[in-house]
């Protein structure tokens, strides 16, 4: 669901707009690299049209309800993170301007949360997992699942953060986070299943089109006289050396462990406000409301166990986001240092 006008106050909307502009600029640069200078517009445009169309594809859940794909993780894995982010941003822009879906002042928030965070978290996690896991198609599938699953609650958490900073409503942060994470974990599960199946379908037919599975194709073999021989000494890029892979694996494991455990114990005691509420008997009212109206709202605050769990989960997602961001920064700076062969044409302003 797109954030409408009036949900986030003006200064934070403006700040998010700046972040979104930066993300789009980075996306434009990156997409030129991923697709090639003059292929960018038609290919990215058609991919955006695909994202736009696939969001209308209804996946029935049960009892007449249905959901649809959000497409952030899918776009990132199929066409690459920068192109994916750019396409989502363009889709959001057009939905806002043409279909009045999502407020104009909230466009920055929408692009940042749904385009930037979703795509970067999904692709960062995907890349890290693919590096760590053995180089098979199955690990691409597993990485896709994990990336799509985590990206949705991560984006929900990012929205909660924006809401905490500049929300116009008085719903407390913990409650927003619990409700958003609860709902979006379910949505993320659906997103993960659909994304995995879709990527799998593309992998089965045109594996060369899947950006995330580049370098996965096995060298061509010929059956000569009953035995397999290599068709040609395939000029393959050297696989990631054991050293870097070890570093990736260790880093991933340590950060996930840290995040999971530290926040698990950090959130073991109820926070100050809840404690105060409990002490003064203020929470009688709350419990009534929560039990009466939103089963999901009291998901994370009913007892400590759940709070721990959701805290740990949030921590893990946070680390995923940080890792993705770090990877992105590292990647960009590394790219900067190596001189690019193709001239980097900056977007010319022809006003």
């Amino acid at each position, binding site marked *: 669901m797109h954030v409408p006008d*009036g949900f986030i106050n003006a200064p934070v909307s403006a700040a998010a707009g700046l972040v979104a502009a930066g993300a789009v600029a980075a996306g434009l640069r990156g997409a030129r690299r991923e697709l090639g200078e003059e292929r960018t517009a038609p290919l990215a*445009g058609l991919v*955006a049209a695909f994202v736009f169309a696939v969001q209308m594809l209804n996946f029935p859940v049960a009892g007449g309800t249905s959901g649809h794909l959000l497409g952030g993780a899918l776009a990132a894995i199929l066409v690459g993170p920068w192109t994916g982010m750019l396409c989502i941003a363009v889709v959001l822009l057009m939905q806002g301007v043409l279909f009045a879906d999502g407020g104009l002042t909230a466009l920055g928030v929408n692009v940042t949360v749904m385009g930037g965070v979703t795509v970067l978290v999904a692709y960062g996690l995907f890349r890290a997992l693919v590096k760590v896991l053995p180089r098979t198609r199955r690990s691409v599938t597993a990485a896709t699942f994990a990336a799509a699953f985590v990206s949705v609650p991560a984006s929900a958490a990012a929205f909660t953060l924006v809401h905490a900073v500049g929300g116009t409503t008085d719903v407390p942060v913990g409650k927003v986070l619990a409700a958003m994470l609860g709902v979006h974990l379910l949505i993320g599960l659906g997103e993960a299943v659909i994304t995995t199946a879709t990527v799998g379908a593309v992998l089965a037919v045109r594996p060369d089109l899947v950006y995330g599975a580049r370098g996965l194709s096995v060298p061509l073999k010929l059956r000569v006289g009953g035995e397999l021989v290599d068709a040609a000494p395939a000029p393959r890029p050297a696989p990631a050396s054991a050293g870097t892979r070890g570093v990736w694996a260790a880093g991933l494991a340590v950060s996930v462990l840290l995040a999971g455990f530290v926040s698990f114990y950090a959130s073991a005691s109820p926070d100050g406000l809840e404690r105060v509420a409990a002490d003064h008997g203020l929470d009688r009212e709350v419990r009534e409301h929560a039990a009466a109206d939103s089963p999901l709202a009291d998901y994370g605050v009913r007892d400590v166990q759940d709070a721990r769990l959701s805290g740990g989960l949030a921590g893990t997602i946070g680390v995923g986001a940080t890792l993705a961001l770090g990877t992105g920064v590292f990647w960009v700076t590394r790219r900067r240092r190596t001189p690019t062969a193709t001239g980097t044409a900056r*977007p010319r302003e022809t006003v």
Partner: protein
Amino acid sequence: MGAGHAHKLYRHGHSPVHALPAHTKLVAVLGFVVAVVSTPREAMWAFGAYALLLAAVALTARIPAAYLLKRLTVEVPFVAFAFLMPFVVPGETTDLLGVTVSVPGLWDAWNVLAKGTLGVGASVLLAATTELRELLLGLQRLGLPPTLVQIASFMVRYGDVITDEMRRMSVARRSRGFEARGVRHWGVLAKSAGALFIRSYERGERVHLAMVSRGYTGTMPVIDEVTATGAQWRRAAALPLTALAVCLLGWTL
């Protein structure tokens, strides 16, 4: 698509609002929405004034009220969310009044509903009076990078094609007796989505080759440069400036 790539919200007309250049309208709508969002929620009359402003614009543009109201349904899922607000907004603030429905929650719901509706109304008016191509040129005129505008124009130009392709696949599935009823059928739908991606991407490659063979070098020529006269700017500025006045009054009163 015989209608010259008109999008579904556009309503053809020859009113003064239709005649304004797209970028002036974009700036006007953005200014209006910013004013609405910055208005304090306690100034209820201000939102009535904003609604009257929008109604005046709709009258000038000769957009029937029914048309406008029907398009406002984009908002519906969000309205449901807003109605939850009085129940979700917490106890630590309800203890001030001790009622079953929290008052800050009611304020929140009102705030979000009023501002959201006005925002959607303004966007619908913009989309209803501006043609797609004009809108894209207007965005470019306002400083959006040309590549981004190109991508957006490809998206809207082929959006219908891709959506139709998806619909044809759906017809093909149904004519073979397939009906998606639950989670068990997701595999088939996902395969369709995968096929749709391959078709879209390959179409993109074909479009690119066709363009290259016609001399495309990465930039699109702008043939009709849109410019706005001072009078047009002044006319477009009437909406945001009035809104700004209302907003300032809302803060001071």
